[in-house]
């Protein structure tokens, strides 16, 4: 049975009417330059937290030949995760971890993270990532926080339309399965 017209229209409507994060829509319309400010209206983060999440997510996944984290709506995704998916303990850990990360930045570079030069912001994030991935200093809340932030950023980005379809590859309706083909025929990692 081919899908009837009513169903087809309904499906299209679902796709078109689906949730799109505002920054993502704006990013597409404005040619993708949507940082470092706050491009969504944070409901729960205060202004500094929102800017922090925007800046750090873009350090983790920057604009390159494809848009980066904030252009894909990642800061809004992180806010929604932290304030609606997390339980209270996890939320507290996230928010105090954010402060601890700033404290580490102050210790090393004399300033909170937001106020560092972009180059220093990258270097500091990179060093925290190396410590965290290496399994070192994970009892340090600021370092552990970085890994949470990295995971949230990647999760938000690669499940966004930009991340899934531009940076990675995604087919809404593949229509067939082939179990063993040259990688070049796909070209990029499947988003899912």
């Amino acid at each position, binding site marked *: *049975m081919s*899908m009837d017209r009513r*169903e087809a229209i309904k*499906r299209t409507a*679902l*796709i078109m009417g*689906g*949730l*799109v*994060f505002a920054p*993502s829509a704006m990013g597409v319309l404005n040619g993708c330059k949507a940082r470092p400010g706050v491009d969504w209206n944070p409901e729960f983060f205060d202004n500094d937290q929102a800017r922090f999440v925007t800046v750090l997510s873009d*350090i*983790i*996944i*920057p604009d*390159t030949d*494809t848009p980066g984290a904030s252009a894909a709506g990642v800061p809004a*995704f992180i806010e*929604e995760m932290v304030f*609606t*998916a*997390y*339980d209270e303990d996890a939320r507290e850990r996230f928010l105090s971890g954010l402060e601890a990360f700033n404290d580490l930045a102050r210790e090393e570079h004399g300033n909170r993270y937001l106020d560092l030069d972009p180059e220093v912001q990258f270097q500091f994030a*990179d060093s925290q*990532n190396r410590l965290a*991935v290496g399994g070192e200093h994970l009892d340090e809340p600021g370092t552990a926080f970085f*890994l949470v932030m*990295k995971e949230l950023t*990647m*999760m*938000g980005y*690669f*499940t*966004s*339309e930009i991340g*899934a379809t531009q*940076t*990675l590859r*995604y*087919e*809404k*309706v*593949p*229509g*067939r*399965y*082939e*179990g*063993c*083909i*040259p*990688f*070049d*025929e*796909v070209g*990029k*990692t*499947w*988003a*899912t």
Partner: protein
Amino acid sequence: MNLNLKAKKQNTYDAIVVGTGISGGWAAKELTENGLNTLVLERGRDVPHGEYPTATKEPWDLPRNDQIPHEEKKHYEKQLRTGYTIRESTKHWWVKDTDQPYEERKRFDWIRGYHVGGRSIMWGRHSYRLSDLDFEANARDGIAVDWPIRYEDIEPWYDHVERYAGISGEALGIPHFPDSQFLPPMELNCVEKHAREKIAEHFDRVLTIGRVAMLTQPHEGRGACQYRAKCIRGCPYGAYFSSNASTLPAAERTGSMTLRPHSIVNKVMYDEDAGKATGVEVIDAETGEMHEFHARIIFLNASTINTTMIMLNSRSDRFPDGLGNDSGELGHNLMDHHFRVGANGVFDGFEDKYFYGRRPTGFFIPRYRNVGNDRRDYVRGFGYQGGASRQNWWRGVQELAIGRELKEFVQSPGNWTMGMNAFGEMLPDHDNRMWLNFDETDKWGQPIVVFDCEFKENEFKMREDMKNDAAEMLEAAGFKDITTFDDPGGPGLGIHEMGTARMGRDPNTSVLNEWNQVHACKNVFVTDGACMTSAANQNPSLTYMALTARAANYAAEELKKLNL
């Protein structure tokens, strides 16, 4: 008086089917196609085929990466135990535990969906025949009671339901793992094919693609699989078997089906003089009003626990302990499959190979333990479900890279990995049971189900093999970084509840006969999981389909012969 008679006539049918899931849908189709005017009752809301609200949502259409808000979790305390059922895209298919309470003397994971189609919308779609290795098992091992049927009794009915449902898979000619009427199989990927070859070299074991009720070509008016892997949300193409896409529309087309959603069956009414059931008492889930419906035959297909609940709640002078419970076995011998044990490994190689599409199933390794000359320190056996894939962007989280380097890194897939999860047979045991607490009632005034059920020694012994064999096969196939896992969870987690109204030859030790009739009340048939005398290790739905079609056609013939 006249008014009452008229009301009764309006509420009288040839047959009543209670439940619209896998087995209820089949009962509806077979009974109506035999010309019987059939009332089909469903306790939940209607779900016409195609009305699957999240079926075409993409990852970015779903908030929180498809997680539900923390605030909502309190409604799904037990339904959340699977880890995969309660998502933003699927939560509407599952009951809220806050609305549908039950008691646990021991942990039991009762994972349910109440709506037209039941769990035929969310099922795993794996479809395997049982064989005489299974039907003879209880008699051979001296456990519980013997099945009253053998493979030859059910074989033509497997054929019958498979031709309609559409089962894709590979014919293997293994006697204890009988082939179905197959549509073309889905394809194994590179690493699964490699593993299949290596496992066959080292062991007398076969890795094959899952046999699944999914269409690899258009079939019976339904569309072929589009490889989106969003099955659990409902398939707009009708590409997998569900009551909504398949059996209920067929029953509807006969013009003989009346479908009544929001109808909670409270009890089966029994007429002592006639020695028969006369109908069912129904609570309207929306209004709370009580209605009576009458019929010559009644099919209970409410799902294992709910079917037995209805029977236990159907108390009369003749059946003080529940309809058909002369044996005292009603509610006992509760089974599930035990699983969540196996191994994972990483494969070096095939780095230049990938796949296209999201194949919504994996491979299967049929049972090989306690088959032929193989003898273990436990009885029965297990099969494996598994799959190979390539690591995706997740691997970037634990990588040294961030920034541009991270983005580029995850654009190439990582290593191939493969996992396998064993599903083992759970023995029927009189002590594993459910019953009703009549002192506590839910919001419709129905008694609360109580579970007292656990995995026992045979299951735990089997799990050693289930774990070690998986690691052994991965090793033989050249995988590295092999890790094993073993976390049984509670019974019920397999969502394959079985038993509690078992079939058997002797009315003194079983509830149902060889035609799924209640021994002591022949116009009531039970053809859902409650009827299972043993669990086997295979996913059970295909067997429910076949038993239902067989019983429904028998019932229709007996009605014509005026034997019921």
